[in-house]
């Protein structure tokens, strides 16, 4: 009882609580860290395999931020991530390229667009417009490209198109420099 009258008691108590909290979080982090890494890697592998169904594994070049899906030790092409801000928050897009660098297709890795409107950018009817598009065609139809926007989600649609085109320009440049 004496100790609680001490003016430092609140400080000591709060410090103690913070230390217990740190201990609890350290333990949780240690337990979940590998699981989280694994879940992220699994997700990328799964997305890559929808673009490259014959894929058996993949390598990741950290410096160039480039994924290379492999089958029988042979590269099937390239893939990389494109980030752009959509209608509400960031959209991450996985872009796949054929070995000759034509566009193989895209997949939406994460987005926070409006469900039922902008979130439909992740659906196949929208994504299937991308394979084989030339650089100049990666633009909404009303701006002279070959991608139809989703009704009611022009901002989300054009964000995807912009993101893919910008990232593609950058990566093609990078690939050309490397070879």
């Amino acid at each position, binding site marked *: 009882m004496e100790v*609680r009258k001490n003016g430092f008691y609140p400080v000591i108590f709060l410090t103690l609580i913070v230390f217990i909290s740190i201990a609890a979080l350290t333990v949780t982090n240690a337990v979940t860290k590998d699981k989280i890494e694994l879940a992220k890697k699994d997700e990328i592998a799964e997305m890559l395999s929808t673009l490259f169904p014959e894929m058996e594994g993949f390598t990741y070049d950290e410096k160039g931020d480039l994924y290379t899906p492999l089958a029988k030790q042979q590269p099937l092409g390239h893939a990389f991530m494109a980030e752009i801000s959509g209608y509400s928050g960031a959209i991450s897009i996985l872009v796949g390229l054929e070995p000759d660098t034509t566009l193989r297709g895209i997949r939406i890795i994460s987005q926070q667009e409006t469900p039922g409107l902008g979130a439909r950018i992740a659906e196949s009817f929208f994504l299937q417009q991308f394979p084989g598009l030339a650089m100049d065609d990666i633009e909404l139809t009303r701006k002279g490209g070959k991608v139809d926007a989703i009704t009611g989600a022009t901002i989300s649609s054009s964000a995807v198109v912009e993101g893919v085109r910008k990232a593609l320009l950058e990566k093609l440049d990078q690939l050309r420099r490397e070879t």
Partner: protein
Amino acid sequence: MHSFTKNFLKGIIRSNPTFILLLGLCPTLAVSTSLDNAVGMAAAFIFVLLASNIIISLIRNYVPVRVRIPVFIVIIATLVTIVDLILQGFIPALSKSLGMYIPLIVVNCIILGRAEAFASRNNTTNSIADALGMGVGFAWAIVLISLIRQLLGTGALDLFGHHLFTVPGLADNPVTIFLLPMGAFFAIGVLLALFRWMGVSTGE
């Protein structure tokens, strides 16, 4: 046991955190765009509220009054971070669709409100009853709002990838405004009016 039942039941209707106390409306409005999100949010919320009520009621006699709010916040933030990490590791899909709203449970005023108003003044058994009652109250409220929004906004109901049913006619021409933030206000406004009209008044 009588007080246990009483403390449990009050959160469900009479002191419902969403419809009567009007607490924690921000996550309720933001996450109720789909049934999946509502169920996931409710589960994470019940876990955090239950754990925080138990811990706070256990240490209530030792917490210095002057630093009680920082103490409560540290405890709640720790619990939320644990939930966030576990979801990321074990249910990544749900963690992704709830996104920012899991970390935001920290500042959900229902949890801090129950810590301050109930758990810090009552024993552990009653605090568990209070947490479960408030948790269920929040859960049915957010599920009901998301049900209305998903049904009117998309014309169909899905739960964790299973298609439940489609409303003929509505699916081709859905009222998409209900999926937007303003739709959340429409839904909750009408529900609040309904509660007032039925004569449910503040219990506390």
